[in-house]
Each structure stands twice: as structure tokens, then as C-alpha cells.
């Protein structure tokens, strides 16, 4: 009985999907793409989807992340009577098989690789309910291929931040720097005062030595050159041994290998586990004053030193002078223009979608309307950073993958240990070319 019911239901679901797929050109350009959502009483536009419609989506989220996403789409499901059938996979090969047989209606993927792989199959988002006006223009640029807007981020995790102790800064009379020049001045002042500015740690238990260094260097590139420059490195139009990169490495080499600038000099940098590097800034007494690390450091500090209070004992500031942020972002792609898919895309890119995303505290929503709806103090601070920045870049190593990332990490370790910057970066640039090819 039960199995028969499932079978019939399954058949119905398949039939409805086929029907939906067979009726394409019916609704593509009916909605005005630039109509601003009414901020007073936001409502959910179901785009003509019938109650009982189903929608297939693929994403990488699991566990609490998946629960957060379900919370966010719950109002949409209730309002339109749409059932979202989700498949969670982190495997690009699984996605590839799916796309080539039965593509999901909507895809959420944490990089821009689908833009290259499935350019022909992806539908321009402005034809399927997406609202550009709720996003900063750099997000639209990132997701646009030859004039077609194919991807929009629903979630972002910036990591261009530096952790410090406000208490220590106050006691020593330092203020949070706002430009890269300020940061350099502050570092020199700390050294003159006999303080150690940085705590660095590469030790990650083996092969990934150097990734904390690569985050630091990318933030310095964002400060000295800007997000376009970093995106050109990812695209391969700026080689990794460009003078702009070399200049950053010269500053970094001094900071990471001199015992006056970082705990233990080069030996400390390459041997200290990356978590210990965080703790050393908040130990009593602290061994250094600043540590460059992503948002997760907050949770690490809280569990290592439960007595410390966020905001007074530990806090973070945006990497001074960074003209853009680096981090991860999950992008939304459309493979289907069926009403249910249009309704979901319209909801998530609407003002209400952004507000609900923020309220769920599921990292950040790049949607402009998300600001002001976060409850977690660290997320609030992050959201303000995101709202005021002018660009976003993926981690260069993550975006290019191997062999670039392994060569980059190895190069950073070598340079910290005193290797010549020009020759080392030439090797990394060769790996950059190989990664892009």
C-alpha cells in the first residue's frame, strides 16, 4: 500500500517535471526585471506556480547549514505550496552527471565553475525572476558571462579580517588602523615600542603549510592593488610574479620572518600550529598583538578562553585599506524556467529573501536588504563590512586549485625561510599558468 502510494506519487512528480520542462517559452520575459520590491509589506511572488508543484535543487550544505537554508525557504514553501526536493553533494562529478542527465531546477554551488562548464544550459537570471537591483554591481559582474547574468551569490563568508585585543590596544595607546599605510605605521610603532605586532602559524599538520600566509598576502593585495587585480590573477591575465605581487611579498617576508615583527621569527611562523598562533594573542600575558585569521578564530578563542568577552577582550577589524573582501560565496544558478524555479529565484533575490537569510544567521547574504536583520554581533560587523566594500574575490588558491595552490603554499614557506622572492614567484607563476590551462 505504502510502496504503491510512493510509486504513484513518484510517477506524478516525474510527469509534472516533464510537463514543466515541455512548456518552456510560456513565461520567460513576463516580469519586469528591475521592478524594486516594495519594502513596506514584502510579499512572496509565486510566479504562477500551482500549489503542489515541486522543485529540485542541488547544494553542498549539510547538517545545521541545511537546516538554516530550510528555515530561510520555509515561508516561500508555505506561501506558494511548493515542495523543494534537495540533494546535497560536494562532489563536482556527481553534479556533472546530474546536469548531463536530469539537471536540477536550481543549483547552489560555492564557486563559479558552473559558469564555464554549463554556459549553454544556464538561464539568464533576469529572465527567471532574479532581481539585480538588490545587489552591488560587482556581484552581477562576477556572475555575468558575455552579457548574460547567470549567477548570483546567496551567501558569502568574507575573511579579510585581523583579530586583536581591544583591551591591549587601549592599554598600549594604539588605535585600529583604517588604511594600509596606517597598518604599516602601527606595525613599525609597535616594533619601536618593543612589542611584537604579529602572531603567525603555518603548521597545519603537514602538506597545507602556508595557507594562513596566502590569506594574509591576498588581503595585502586587496589593499595595495584592489579586487580587480586579484581577479585578474585568478583569470591569469596578471602573472603571480607581477611587480605588484612582488612588492607585497617584500613587506610580508619582513613581517613573517623577523623575530621583531612576529613571534619567533621565521622559525615561529613555520612551526607554530595555526590555532596556537591565534591563542598567543589572547594568552596572559599576550605574546603578540594581532593575528590575521578568518571568522572561525572567534569560536576558537571563545572555546580556548571562555572567560574572555567578545568586543572587549577580543574583536576583529577589517584588513586596513582592503578595497575588496576575500572569502567564499555560494552562487545560485538556474537550469529551469518553470514557475516554481522562478518563484524561488524571485524570493531569494527579493528584499524579503535577503531579510530572512540574515535573520537565519546563515553566514551573510550579499542581498542589500539583509543589513540590519542580523542578530549575532560578529555577523552584524561582517555585514557592515560587506555592505561597504567595493569588490569580492575568492581565495586565489581555492579558485585556481592545484598545482597553483601547492606551489603557492610551498613558495610562501620558502620565502619566509629566506628564499629569493623573484625566483620563487617565477615558479609559482608557472604553476598559475598550468592551473589555468
Amino acid at each position, binding site marked *: 500500500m505504502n510502496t504503491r502510494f510512493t510509486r504513484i506519487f513518484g510517477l506524478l512528480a516525474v510527469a509534472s517535471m516533464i510537463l514543466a520542462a515541455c512548456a518552456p517559452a510560456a513565461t520567460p520575459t513576463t516580469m519586469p526585471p528591475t521592478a524594486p520590491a516594495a519594502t513596506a509589506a514584502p510579499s512572496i511572488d509565486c510566479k504562477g506556480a500551482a500549489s503542489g508543484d515541486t522543485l529540485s535543487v542541488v547544494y553542498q550544505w549539510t547538517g545545521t547549514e541545511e537546516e538554516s537554508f530550510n528555515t530561510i525557504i520555509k515561508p516561500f514553501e508555505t506561501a506558494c505550496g511548493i515542495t523543494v526536493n534537495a540533494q546535497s553533494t560536494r562532489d563536482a562529478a556527481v553534479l556533472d552527471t546530474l546536469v548531463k542527465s536530469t539537471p536540477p531546477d536550481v543549483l547552489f554551488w560555492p564557486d563559479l565553475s558552473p559558469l564555464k562548464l554549463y554556459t549553454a544550459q544556464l538561464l539568464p537570471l533576469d529572465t527567471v525572476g532574479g532581481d539585480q537591483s538588490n545587489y552591488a554591481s560587482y556581484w552581477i559582474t562576477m556572475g555575468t558571462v558575455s552579457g548574460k547574468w547567470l549567477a548570483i551569490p546567496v551567501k558569502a563568508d568574507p575573511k579579510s579580517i585581523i583579530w586583536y585585543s581591544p583591551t591591549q590596544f587601549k592599554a598600549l595607546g594604539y588605535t585600529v588602523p583604517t588604511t594600509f599605510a596606517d597598518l604599516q605605521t602601527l606595525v613599525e610603532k609597535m616594533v619601536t615600542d618593543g612589542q611584537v605586532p604579529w602572531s603567525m602559524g603555518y603548521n597545519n599538520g603537514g602538506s597545507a603549510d602556508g595557507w594562513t600566509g596566502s590569506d594574509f598576502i591576498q588581503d595585502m593585495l586587496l589593499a595595495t592593488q584592489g579586487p580587480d587585480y586579484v581577479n585578474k590573477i585568478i583569470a591569469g591575465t596578471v602573472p603571480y610574479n607581477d611587480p605588484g605581487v612582488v612588492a607585497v611579498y617584500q613587506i610580508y617576508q619582513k613581517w613573517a620572518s623577523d623575530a621583531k615583527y612576529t*613571534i619567533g621569527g621565521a*622559525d*615561529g611562523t613555520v*612551526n607554530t600550529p595555526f590555532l596556537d598562533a591565534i591563542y598567543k594573542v589572547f594568552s596572559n600575558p599576550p*605574546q603578540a598583538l594581532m593575528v590575521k585569521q578568518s571568522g572561525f578564530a572567534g569560536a576558537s578563542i571563545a572555546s580556548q578562553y571562555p572567560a574572555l568577552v567578545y568586543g572587549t577582550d577580543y574583536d576583529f577589524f577589517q584588513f586596513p585599506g582592503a578595497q575588496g573582501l576575500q572569502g567564499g560565496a555560494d552562487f545560485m544558478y538556474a537550469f529551469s524556467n518553470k514557475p516554481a524555479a522562478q518563484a524561488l529565484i524571485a524570493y531569494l533575490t527579493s528584499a524579503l529573501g535577503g531579510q530572512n537569510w540574515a535573520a537565519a544567521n546563515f553566514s551573510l547574504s550579499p542581498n542589500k536588504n539583509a543589513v540590519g536583520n542580523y542578530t549575532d554581533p560578529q555577523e552584524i560587523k561582517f555585514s557592515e563590512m560587506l555592505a561597504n566594500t567595493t569588490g569580492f574575490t575568492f581565495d586565489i588558491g581555492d579558485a585556481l586549485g*592545484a598545482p597553483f595552490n601547492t606551489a603557492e603554499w610551498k613558495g610562501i614557506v620558502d620565502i619566509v625561510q629566506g628564499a629569493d622572492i623573484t625566483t620563487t614567484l617565477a615558479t609559482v607563476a608557472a604553476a598559475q599558468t598550468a592551473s589555468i590551462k
Partner: protein
Amino acid sequence: MVPTIMKQGRLAPWSYLLPALILMTAFIVYPTIGTIRLSLLDATSTNSAATTCTAGKSCWGIFENYHFALTNTDMLIALRNNALWLLLMVPGTIAGGLLFALLADRVRYESIAKAIIFLPTAISFIGAGIIWRFVYDIETGGSPQIGLLNAIVVGLGGKPVTWLSNPAINNFSLMLVGVWLWAGFCMTILSAAIKNVQAEILEAARVDGANEWQVFWQIMFPTILPTIVVVTTTMAIIILKIFDIVFVMTGGNFGTEVIANRMFTLIVTNPGQSTAIAVILIVLTIPIMIFNIQRFRKEEAAR
């Protein structure tokens, strides 16, 4: 007269060999041929490796991956390090094993002593790597040293040493872990050989006035030499393939790269180059294998 049923046909011996032949073909011959084929192709395993040549630079045509494997900077370091491992760790384990075997032979609590020395062999390479990471740990910035070696060094008034990140010493630090792991294995086999040396010969030598040093070098050593050769060749093959210790403890950073770690790192991004390195590793072990087989045949003939 032999009953017909017990007579073997021409095919009978082959039928006994068949299972072994099938297994060998499926799991050794076929993959080896596949590996060699891949090593002649590019990173996508579809085009000839010759297509990866850069114009204007020297090119080995279809053997371009081998060109890479024998000239790339990281590979040169790896080849140098593998040679170092062979030259230092093989004698290290044999000498260590022999010393323990001889000393244990002369004490009453022999089995306990041998069990303790043998214990590391039972630990996985990964486990050993993690244990020794703690031994070699260094703390900077005034924190107390939690690494055993550096705690001793500092306790004696010295400055903490970067055992794993200083390119001048880190390879030796890693080899010490290797010796610690394998000396017990060598000891067990050598100890058995020592037990087989006839006590009468040793007694006779001592009666004739030979001292212990002479007894060892003139009598004991030549008698157990065949066993030492077996252990040496076995260790040489094991050490050529060294991977786990390096992977866990330094990840091939700081100039500690070895051939097998290069192979492992490259398999994801460039199967062509990775398999070329694998083939080189096979080629390097072949002479040792041939030597082993020849010696085995000679021994069989002498019986």
C-alpha cells in the same frame, strides 16, 4: 607402474599456476602496463606527453614527463633525499638492529628487551610520525617547550632547535624516526641468524685466544652475512618507497621532499607526471630485485 590417474598431462602444471597467473596479470602486469601508458600521456591522459613541450625549450618528445621527473627542481631535491635516505638509513637500521641483537643475546631478560625494541615496528607510520612531531616540537615566543628534545636542550641551557624546519638537519630528524621504526624489524631477523651460529665454533675461537672483537668480525659476521644481505635489500626497497613519515611530519616542505610524496602530490593534477615518477621508482627498485633473486638462486644451488 604409476596409475594413469596420477600421471600429469601437459596442461596440468599450468592449471596449478593459473590462479597465480591470473592474479599476477590482473593486479601487477596490467596496472604496470597501464602506468607506463599513462606516463607517456599529458595531464588529461588523452594526448601524447609530447604536446606539453614548451616551444624553444629542450623536449624529450613522448618522454617529456620523464624529462620533468628528472629535471624539475622539486624532483631533484626528492631524488637527492631518497639517495640520502638509502645511504644513511639502510646502514642505520642494519647497524642498530645488529647492535640490539648482539646486546640482547647477552642479557638474561632478552625477550623483554627485544620486545621493547620491536614495539615501534607494530606502530603505524602515521602514528609514529605524529608521536615524533611531538618529540621534535618547538615553541617560540617564550612558551615552555613541550617537545621532548627541545625541553632537554633548553633544560641543559641551550637554545631550542627547529628539528623539522631547518633544511640542514631536518632530513636527519626524519631518518631517525625511520631507524626507530625499522631497527626492531632488522633486530628480530638478525637475532635469529645469530642464534644459528654454532656455539662450538665461537668457543673454539675463544679457546684459541681470539678476543670478542675478533670473534665477531672473523666468525660471527661472515656466518650471518647472507642474512645481513637479505635484510639490507629488503630495507633498501622499503626505504626507496619512503612516504608516510615525510608526509605526516613535514609534508615535503623545507627541503624534505621524497620521490613517493611527489608521486602522491601530482597524481591529482597531473597523472602523466605522477606515473612517470612511479615508473622511475619501479626502475630504481629493479636492480635490487634482480640482485635478490640471483642471490636466492645461488643459495638454492648451494644446498
